[in-house]
């Protein structure tokens, strides 16, 4: 049976052939360790990383590519930001719609003397910035929030929160853009983002095992590295380098992966973010319209409005558990989706679907209208049983 891949919020599929080709070319023609030797292919490997930083910087309106730390995913990026910056006695604010990549480090920090405030969102998952602005304390050091929920797709008012945080002295604004990098415009200057965590393997069309963290100038002085080790720089010193990006990049990196990520980023620049967003929005709107016709049996969570969400739709069918639904979709229609809690128990509590969770269909740039129509047929058949 043909499969229809609707799990793009977990990782995008298929990947562009340019990405796969770039990884092959790196491994075949370069294949050296970046920054560890002075020979030409080591320099070319270093150039691969540099060009990836440049492409990321361009996409997110970052002036200096060396402010971009390459990580293995957004979880690592978020852990560097949270565990590196927060100290006992500090206060941190987050939202009720976070993924465990934010909540677990924060709960860990909470058990080590860091004060935590979790601001609830509406049942649709939307944060009211006014609620968040009431939670600041004298010792607030950071606001950390997702740009869009991985459960409901709800796009959060990041720019508004950025303006609020910018007025507070010494408070850092950290954004988890795992679901939005490559899907929605992100401008670290216009949005006042101090720390931006992204993953490479979702809408940036890179392979798994790639990600990045932007750190605003000056803030690296306040953020300790999670790992230390060889960087290829300042080898005569046994202390970790204190400059960007080496401070946070110890050990041989996933250079073939970043070669692929760079190709994915170049493809986004060529296609244009607007075209990608338009396509994903029209697929989401088509699916939401179709679900609307079944509203007596199907409950949709989140904004239920393609303009206010990413290409992620969470729903439940009356009297069918999410896991039974997912099994039916795969066995009967070859539809690959994700049921359950999506690593975000807090978000499910917020929208009232804890502990059973939801069925999540997440569309990507390579899905077609036909995929959406087939998905609607499958949901319709299960709902009518």
């Amino acid at each position, binding site marked *: 049976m043909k499969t229809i891949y609707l799990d793009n919020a977990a990782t995008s599929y298929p990947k562009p052939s340019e990405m796969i080709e770039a990884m092959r070319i790196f491994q075949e023609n370069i294949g050296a360790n970046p*920054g560890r030797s002075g020979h030409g292919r080591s320099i070319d490997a270093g150039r691969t990383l540099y060009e990836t930083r440049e492409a990321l910087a361009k996409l997110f309106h970052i002036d200096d590519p060396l402010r971009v730390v390459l990580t293995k995913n957004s979880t690592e990026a978020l852990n560097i930001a949270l565990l590196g910056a927060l100290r006992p006695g500090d206060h941190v604010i987050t939202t009720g719609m976070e993924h465990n990549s934010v909540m677990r480090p924060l709960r860990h920090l909470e058990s080590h003397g860091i004060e935590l405030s979790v601001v609830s969102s509406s049942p649709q998952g939307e944060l009211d910035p006014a609620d968040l602005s009431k939670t600041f304390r004298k010792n607030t050091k950071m606001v950390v929030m997702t740009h869009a929920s991985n459960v409901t797709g709800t796009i959060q008012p990041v720019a508004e929160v950025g303006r609020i945080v910018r007025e507070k002295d010494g408070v850092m604004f950290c954004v988890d853009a795992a679901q939005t990098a490559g899907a929605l415009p992100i401008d670290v200057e216009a949005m006042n983002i101090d720390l931006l965590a992204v993953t490479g393997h979702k809408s940036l069309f890179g392979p798994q095992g790639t990600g990045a963290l932007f750190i605003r100038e000056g803030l690296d002085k306040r953020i300790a590295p999670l790992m230390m080790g060889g960087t*290829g720089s*300042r080898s005569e010193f046994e202390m970790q380098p204190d400059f960007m990006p080496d401070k946070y990049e110890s050990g041989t990196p996933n250079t073939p992966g970043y070669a692929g990520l760079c190709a994915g980023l170049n493809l986004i620049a060529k296609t244009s973010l607007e075209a990608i967003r338009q396509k994903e929005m029209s697929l989401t709107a088509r699916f939401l319209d179709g679900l609307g016709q079944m509203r007596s049996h199907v409950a949709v969570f989140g904004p239920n409005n393609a303009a206010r969400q990413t290409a992620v739709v969470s729903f439940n069918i009356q009297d069918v558990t999410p896991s039974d639904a997912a099994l039916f979709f795969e066995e009967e229609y070859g539809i690959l989706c994700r049921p359950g809690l999506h690593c975000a128990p807090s978000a499910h509590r917020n929208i009232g679907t804890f502990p059973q969770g939801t069925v999540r269909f997440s569309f990507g740039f390579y899905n077609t209208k036909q995929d959406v129509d087939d998905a609607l047929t499958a949901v319709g058949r299960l709902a009518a049983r």
Partner: protein
Amino acid sequence: MTAPTPQAVALFHSVSHALRAEKIAKAAGIACRLIPVPRHLSSDCGVCLRFPLAEQSAIEQSLSNQIDYYEIFPL
């Protein structure tokens, strides 16, 4: 035979900085190349940017405000 053009090198904190400097210098039209750091200058395992000594002020000008730290040595 003409005498070889006197060369100089710029040393940076890291390969990332050297790569950035190379891009900036090339964009400014300066003939330059990344080479291993000569042993007498540093025990570091990295690379440095080699350029004609006559271009020193052009290099300094193009790198100012773009790269925080670098040192120049004539070869």
